[in-house]
């Protein structure tokens, strides 16, 4: 904690990485959903 208080750059780093993980996860789940939908529609 002490370390983070003195180096605010690392707080920026943590926030940015979390944002990126969020975006990445979202894209990944979207990709899976669309793949499922494609399979379903093309089967019909």
């Amino acid at each position, binding site marked *: 904690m002490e370390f983070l208080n003195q180096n605010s*750059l*690392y707080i*920026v*780093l943590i926030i*940015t*990485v979390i944002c*990126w*993980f969020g*975006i*990445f996860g979202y*894209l*990944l789940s*979207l*990709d899976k959903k*669309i793949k499922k*939908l*494609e399979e379903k*529609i093309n089967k019909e």
Partner: protein
Amino acid sequence: MVFKIILGIGLTLVIIAGIALPMVSNPSSFFELPVVPGLEDKARIIFFHVPTAWVCVIAFITSLIYGIQYLRTKEILYDIKSVTAAGLGFLFCILATVTGAIWSKFTWGAFWNWDPRQTSIFVLLLIYGAYFALRSSIEVEEKRASLSAVYSIIAGLTVPFFIFIIPRIVSSLHPDPIINPQGKIHMNPTMLVIFLSSLTGFTAVYYWMFNLRVRFSKLLYQQQMKEQE
């Protein structure tokens, strides 16, 4: 799937390296970045701001190429691709403008000062805005596709003029010590590696988003065609 994992890990590493690597005046090991005089930590923006602007330009060119393809083949799929690229380009264009403006406030003292590159991104924003305004005012699908393709070609052709005109009118404030007009890159190897992988990573993310939206729109279109029959 492998590429997605590589992309996920790669861009995470880029973020960590871009933000966390210490800046020292004489970098001796590979894990140290050089200090850019006058910018210090603010120089780290190059790893995130430049790639957004780069993606914005890539998206514009993609949209243009698919627009030309549409005019040649009249295949509505190309229009779907063209508009998707334009939509993402608009998004990244806004990101680049906003990040640039915030950075400019703390470096040059004002959010906006009509620096040549700010002017060009402003023009790009205007073109995207006009493009979508045009699209929303045409109801017939085929007409919308061909008119917006024609518009983006004409708009795209005016962009190179700025390269000749802007230097005649104003001088640039943009940090050129890093990439100067002769194309010589004054980055140390570490910076270069991070910068280039960031560019690749952002382009890959753009391509992924593009791919997802095109697939989605295609499904929508298929469904629409099915309902009519």
